[in-house]
């Protein structure tokens, strides 16, 4: 019996050495250690032996078992490394078509996200507007000198026009909504412009406004700084200065440092070292009065910026016309 066991062991080791795939190896493992395996059966026969033999053979079987298990495990590792089936993960494939958002949509989404976190809702309004909502209610009566900043496209002169800014949504919202509210609006606006690489008759604006008891210039400054820092980068320098807009009083202009020249002055910033980013201010008391509010009891702020330049800068587009004429290749 002793010899049988040693023969079986040697035979098994020889067989295992010959093997070149995992399936055969598993087959041999079952032949040895399976329910009817050679080693398993030998173990079952132990009970028929004398106590002395039982002890001796028992030890031998254990040794053989350990040896064979180790040989099988080694072979298994060996096979995994050396006899792997051919597989090429570098094979080229066709990528499934997924779509892409327009750069302007991406910027609007990103900006909106920042303002949502500051408690702003999103609104929208008509593009075909009346002089009333686009100008009159915004403290821009006819023949106001500031009207020459905005030459509009008329559908019926002088009352029906394409909105020249998203501020028309501000007047509509103040009329419709009950304070407190905070709103951002992104949308198409139109101006009388001869189309060239840097001007288009249609452009996008991003506007925000808030109306709430107790809102002050510090809230405006904090909101805008928070937005500019999250969108353009914590390290950007910001200039918060006085600027006249008829819709606000006091009025604010906000510039950020020109990163093209590190503020040394270049053609992008016209030598100023700063890039004009947005206009803002506290909602003009006349506008609040137009809607029956007492400016001493409730206050608000508003801000607006052109989006196209930001989109062009972000996606390295040089010609404003490329944004909306189907030139963008995804």
């Amino acid at each position, binding site marked *: 019996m002793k010899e049988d066991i040693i023969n079986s062991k040697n035979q098994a080791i020889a067989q295992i050495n010959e093997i070149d795939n995992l399936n055969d190896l598993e087959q041999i493992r079952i032949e040895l250690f399976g329910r009817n395996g050679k080693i398993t059966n030998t173990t079952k026969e132990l009970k028929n032996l004398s106590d002395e033999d039982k002890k001796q053979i028992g030890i031998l079987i254990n040794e053989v078992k350990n040896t064979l298990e180790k040989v099988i495990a080694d072979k298994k590792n060996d096979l995994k490394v050396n006899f792997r089936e051919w597989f090429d993960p570098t094979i080229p494939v066709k990528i499934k078509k997924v779509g892409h958002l327009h750069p302007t949509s991406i910027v609007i989404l990103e900006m909106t996200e920042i303002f949502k976190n500051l408690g702003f809702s999103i609104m929208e309004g008509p593009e075909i507007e009346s002089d009333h909502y686009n100008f009159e209610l915004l403290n821009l009566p006819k023949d106001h000198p500031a009207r020459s900043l905005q030459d509009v496209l008329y559908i019926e002169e002088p009352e*029906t026009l394409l909105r020249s800014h998203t501020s028309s949504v501000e007047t509509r919202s103040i009329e419709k909504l009950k304070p407190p509210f905070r709103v951002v609006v992104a949308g198409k606006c139109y101006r009388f412009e001869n189309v060239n690489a840097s001007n288009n*008759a249609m452009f996008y604006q991003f506007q925000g406004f808030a109306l709430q008891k107790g809102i002050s210039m510090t*809230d405006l400054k904090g909101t805008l700084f928070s937005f500019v820092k999250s969108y353009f980068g914590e390290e950007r320098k910001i200039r918060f200065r006085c600027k006249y807009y008829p819709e606000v009083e006091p009025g604010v202009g906000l510039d950020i440092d020109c990163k093209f020249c590190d503020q040394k002055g270049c053609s992008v910033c016209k030598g100023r070292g700063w890039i004009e980013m947005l206009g803002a201010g506290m909602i003009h008391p006349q506008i609040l009065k137009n809607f029956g509010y007492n400016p001493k009891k409730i206050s608000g702020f508003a801000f607006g910026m052109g989006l196209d330049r930001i989109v062009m800068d972000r996606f390295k587009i040089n010609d404003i016309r490329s944004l909306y004429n189907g030139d963008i290749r995804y």
Partner: protein
Amino acid sequence: MKVPLNWLNKLVEVPKDVKKLTSDLTMVGHMLDKIETKNSETILDLELRGNRADCYSILGIAREVSAIYKTKLKNIPIITVKKIKELKNINLDIQTPLVKRVGMIEIKNIKITKSPKWLSDKLIAYGLESKNNIVDLTNYVMIETGEPMHAFDLDKIGNSLEIRLAKDGEKIITFMDANITLTKDDLVWTKGNEILSVAGSIGEKYHSIVSDTKNILLEAANYDRANIRKTVYRHNLLTDAGIRHEKELDPNMVDFAISRFLYFVKKYNWGEFTPEMYDYYPKEIKPWKVHLDFAYLNNFSGLTLNFNEIKNILLNLQFEIIKKDKLGIDVLVPTHRTDVTLEEDLIEEIVRIYGYDKIPTKTLSLEIPKNITPNYIIQEDKLRQSAISVGFDENISLSFVREKYKDTNVTIINPPSPDTKYLRNSLFPNLLDSAKKIVNERGEFVQLFEIGKIYFKEKNNYIEKRKIGFIYWSKEKNSFSDFKSLILTFFNKIDIKNPDYVSEILNFNFTNSYILKLNNNQVGFGGMHDFLYYVEIDLDSILGKENKYKINLWVKFPPQIEDLTLIIPEKTYIGEIIHSIKQTNKYINDVELEDIFENSYTFRIWYQHPDKTLVDKEVEKIRNEIIMTLKQKFGITIKN
């Protein structure tokens, strides 16, 4: 506004550091546009915003510099004039309230010469040509004080003048040789029927001074700003005088400007005059009162300013404090600050000089208002994400269409170019242009979508409707099926059930056209044009039609699945057959078209009961119902 620094320095001490000066001016509201150097002189070009009429002058900018740096203005020499109500030889008739003030003075024995160098240099630095001493001096005083003035040839204008509204069709040739036909809204200076000048903007040629003029009538005036503005824009008269008179000028600058002019005439001995100015000033403007509440200032600005700080700023800006108590002050606004009429204007004055950079930065610490974003805006975002997830790239185009596509009743009456004249009535034309660009460039396939508005007029109302348009083109044969599959996948993604495709002939240039229906209501249309497939869906029609999201578990009892091959007559809509099969019995869970061979169509049918496994007999019964229905409705027979 061009500000030559040497000139500014005559009126106020200018800091040596130009960069600091321009930065400080920018902070208080006068942004530096650019710095120029001309004949080694530094000239600031400041962007002015229209509300500060007083800043269209060197004096106005000097006042700002004086307020920023708390320095005194230098003395400006003048010859004080006595104001008189009548001139000896000239009568001026004014019937319109559009004239607020007129100052006039006769200057005799004028010596017209070349301007001295200091004078011509200053004008050239500002950007004006030098003509002769008298014309240059009117310009010089205008730039310095902001008050435009005009000199007539006294010997040509006669002795009876009038300022009145023109008659429609009256004509004038300006000294710039332009012909202008006036309207009844234009204010003019006249001598009988002859027009001498368009008030506030430009003089007539014949009556202006020339090299042999002997005597002049010098005038400075103040008019109704809005009227001048209309004239200036109507006739494109954006002259240096015009751009000042269209803003709210201070009428009290009239005599100051004339006095300043006389100072130079006397100093250089360019003419003779009696220091008496004819003054038409029916309603004198005096400094007005604005109240300032300290608490309001501090709450509104977020600053904490004490009275001394407020006082110093206001005094440096030439405001006067006439009354003070614990809560606030009454302030007298100098008449050149026509832009300051409200308490909030006063607050801006104080805060801008104190420094916007000193306002603390505090993110909205107030209660967060509730979210009021309307559903249709959320819908657009979802549609956009869904459209890209099924492979469409987003297109954004102008809201205008080219003339060849005009199918619209909304047009722009003042289009800057023919391409911006017609507002679109469908997203199709611009998507078509974009798609063709891609076909021509790469020619593999095109998948574009756009979300935007279309515009039309209905019963005198202008209507805007939000649409989503899909355009598709592929080299593959089964393009329509592929496109339809993508559109239905899109509907699946936005949780709206598949719309019905109903064949219909449309007005557009489409072949194979159809409309899309949901619950029997039209929600869109589609068709083919130049082998490009298009679908346009109305966003408001599908708004709120989304299925409530719910979880379905797998039914415990397995379905019986079998294929039925049917022989179908020509021109039968397959969609209707599938619809009919599904309607036959509620245990028909699903029907799919598996295969087509000639006129044989194989459908795969799932029979399934929610509470038990259907036995063959039960299935057979349902199958017979199907065959019966199809035979009656469509004349369909079952194969084999």
